[in-house]
């Protein structure tokens, strides 16, 4: 036994079509706070899922050595049994239950047929005091704020006798005071010997709290910086996160004449549909011209999808205010149908969840947003529908035996093409593509980029929302940077660089 509590060696994890982790190595010292940083999709969360047994032994290659022993976790309970406890970014608490009930959910005090509620609440109170909460454990989760909920999660982890605590973006939904309190709590536990791994995008917090920082990029470990030895400045960390060459992964656009403004949004505000008073989009103004490709960059949760969907016929949010101009004329789009009629298209980031009907054939999916286009007085012209589907299949080079193939059986790239076909068939002037290449392989990405260029060449306006910086940089004529619902930067293609965009995001954060 040494002062190394955890070593992850040569971890490789593949999802169908994507290598999420490629030979990743991580060494965590006992009693330290170790930070993992990297862009969205770099593989940080996947690595932690491997560690906690969510991705069971056998689904990855490589070794996890914990306290000097090789571990083969097949489920979360296995890793928790050894004191490895993960707290996810999305809080996993049941709002209608009390703090005490939540804390021992699945780990109830007393006998299986007779829960000992007195013990439950007494113990829960004890752990609550440890994290500095004065609340009674009988309080319902929904009655306490998000900051306190995060502390309850930590108390819950302590109740599981955590030796190694993993926190995935613990401060992403907290305000400054709560974040500071949480970080100080982590430092306090460190004194008592608890080891923590913290995933965060907030580099100032990382430099404040961490002893070591490991940078992950595209599924590889790039470097590990150690406090006192290496430079811990934000710029230094950013360089590690984005230092990557943009090669010719992006097809060139030739001679596309950029025309007049096709769509303009002014002073756009959107509130969260459930949390009263939570502003998701904050005074955003932007525009896109004919034949122009505009990128919107930002971290997950920056409000990009919410902005796009609220523009697309108010399909997200409440109390939406602001003005929307299409070709210079102000329009009020009340619903999605209106938006489609005004030649707007929104291609969702979640093609399986909200884009396609997986159990239906390509033909049906292709025509769904424009059934009027293949029907007369409400009667579908089966032959026309078939012909259109085949037409788009050939135009976009969708690989499938026939258009009667169910979309669920296609690869991610081909599903994305069907989704694009569906929206191209509505003949839009402005297309908002939300993460158009998420989870698809490099070859299919290139084809999607070609389609985007083709659309621009036809004089359409394209907005690309993407978490991948190279994609935004490689494809856009102009880039808006969005953070916490606000536009925090605008760059032309010439000005923009990965460092500038990441800098704009990270420096705007609190």
């Amino acid at each position, binding site marked *: 036994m040494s002062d190394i509590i955890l070593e992850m060696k040569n971890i490789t994890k593949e999802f169908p079509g994507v290598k999420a982790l490629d030979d990743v190595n991580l060494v965590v010292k006992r009693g330290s706070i170790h930070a993992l940083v990297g862009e969205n999709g770099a593989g940080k969360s996947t690595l932690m899922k491997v560690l906690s047994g969510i991705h069971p032994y056998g689904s990855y290659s490589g070794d996890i050595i914990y306290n000097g022993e090789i571990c083969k976790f097949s489920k979360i309970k296995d890793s928790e049994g050894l004191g490895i406890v993960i707290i996810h970014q999305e809080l996993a608490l049941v709002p209608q239950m009390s703090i005490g009930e939540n804390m021992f959910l699945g780990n109830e005090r007393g006998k299986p047929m007779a829960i000992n509620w007195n013990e439950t609440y007494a113990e829960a109170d004890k752990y609550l005091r440890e994290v500095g909460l004065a609340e009674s454990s009988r309080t319902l989760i929904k009655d306490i704020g998000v900051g306190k909920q995060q502390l309850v999660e930590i108390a819950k982890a302590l109740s599981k006798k955590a030796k190694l605590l993993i926190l995935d973006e613990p401060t992403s939904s907290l305000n400054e005071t709560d974040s500071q309190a949480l970080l100080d709590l982590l430092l306090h536990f460190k004194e008592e010997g608890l080891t923590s791994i913290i995933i965060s995008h907030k580099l100032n917090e990382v430099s404040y709290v961490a002893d070591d920082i490991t940078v992950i990029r595209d599924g590889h470990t790039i470097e590990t910086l150690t406090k006192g030895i290496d430079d811990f400045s934000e710029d230094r960390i950013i360089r590690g996160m984005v230092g990557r060459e943009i090669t010719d992964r992006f097809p060139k656009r030739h001679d596309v004449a950029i025309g007049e403004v096709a769509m303009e949004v002014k002073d756009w505000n959107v509130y969260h549909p459930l949390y009263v008073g939570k502003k998701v989009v904050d005074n955003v103004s932007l525009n896109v011209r004919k034949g122009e490709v505009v990128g919107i960059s930002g971290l997950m949760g920056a409000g990009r999808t919410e902005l796009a969907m609220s523009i*697309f*016929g108010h*399909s997200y949010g409440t109390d939406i205010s602001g003005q929307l101009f299409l070709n210079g004329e102000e329009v009020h789009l009340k*619903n*999605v*149908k209106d*938006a*489609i009629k005004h030649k707007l298209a*929104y291609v*969702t980031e979640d093609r399986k*969840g*909200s*884009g*396609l*009907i*997986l*159990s*239906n054939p390509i033909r*049906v999916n292709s025509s*769904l*947003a424009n*059934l*009027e286009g293949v*029907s007369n007085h*409400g*009667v*579908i012209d*089966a*032959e026309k529908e*078939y012909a259109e589907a085949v037409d788009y299949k050939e135009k976009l080079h969708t690989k499938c035996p*026939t258009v*009667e193939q169910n979309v*669920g059986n296609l690869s991610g790239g081909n599903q994305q093409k069907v989704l694009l076909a*569906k929206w191209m068939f509505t003949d839009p002037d402005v297309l908002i593509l939300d993460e158009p290449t998420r989870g698809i392989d490099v070859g299919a990405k290139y084809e999607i980029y070609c389609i985007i260029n083709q659309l621009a060449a036809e004089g359409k306006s394209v907005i690309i929302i993407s978490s991948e910086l190279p994609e935004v940089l490689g494809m856009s004529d102009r880039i808006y940077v969005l953070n916490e619902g606000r536009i925090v930067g605008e760059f032309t293609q010439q000005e923009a660089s990965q460092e500038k965009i990441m800098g704009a995001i990270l420096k705007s954060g609190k």
Partner: protein
Amino acid sequence: MNKNKVLAFVQKYTMVLILVLVVGFFTWRTGGKILLPQNITNLFAQNAYVFVLATGMLLCILTGGNIDLSVGSVVCFVGAIGAVVMDKGLNMWLAILIMLAIGLLIGAWQAFWIALVHVPPFITTLAGMLVFRGLSNVVLQGKTLGVANETFVRLFGGGANCYIPDIFGGQGMNILCLLVGAIAIVIYLVSTFTGRANRLKKGYEVEKLGATIVKSVIIALVIAFFAVKLAQYKGLPTAMIWVALIIGIYSYITSKTTTGRHFYAVGGNELATKLSGINTEKVYFIAYANMGLLAAFAGMLTIARLTSAQPTYGQNYEMDAIGSCFIGGASAYGGVGTVPGVIIGALLMGVINIGMSIIGLDANYQKVVKGLVLLAAVIFDVVSKKKQR
């Protein structure tokens, strides 16, 4: 390869094969009685309400496995109203109009809560089941009320003369019935083969010629069989005409219209449908409003057949309808199911009903069997879905 083909065939036609097996079983157990002309006639005449209700139920189930529990009570309530107004001497046509209007109104009432206020359909229609059962009792004051209007009874398939009269005056054989059967076969064959030729000409994919021929011959033989059997008894029951009409209309709506497509889309992926500019609330509304209308129609068939209205009519009708849909291949998750499938399901339910009655199985055991058949059908759906994932 060959084994796979057989497996795929069995999977595609599971319910048809099971129907054949069940018919075979009852033919054996009843010594062929189930195939007597009178029983074949009853299969359609007695179960007309199942076909009608199951068609409406299919639309509800398509939206996402949602069911309507109130149909049995609505059948009874609308029937009760009809019987009362006709008893008061109201014109028959006006009475029909009133019944359909009330059905639609009840449907719209439930649809409002389900589609616009998002009350779960199970709860809304469970409430409707109680409300309209209670109101039926109130309207009929707990008693049986006869339906004396002879035209109404005959028109909707009740009494001894609810058959289309044979204009050719055939002896022992209803010639009109045979003629209708022959015409149906010709229409079916012509439309199948011209449709196939058309698709072939335009370069679309078509089924293999052999498969089409085999399928067409089987369907033609089945139609011919039923036509002969019905002709040997009293001819075409009027109720069957109504059933054919409704099945025809709803097959068309579900397979050929944008409205029909919307039902499948909502059940397949509601979020994607919403983001495609389709008003999903309207889809739910139509499903449940329409269910009310068809329940009213089934109510008319019921009081005509039984020539009376009673506060207990329509009990468990919802189960027959729901069962037919699931047995006929509708998915408990929504988005999958066809009207022809539901016909198979309803036929299977009908065969089981009649077969068990002929055998003289205790009514309580009949319920056990029907319940198990329904469970088996849904298990089949759930398990096969799981394998796909």
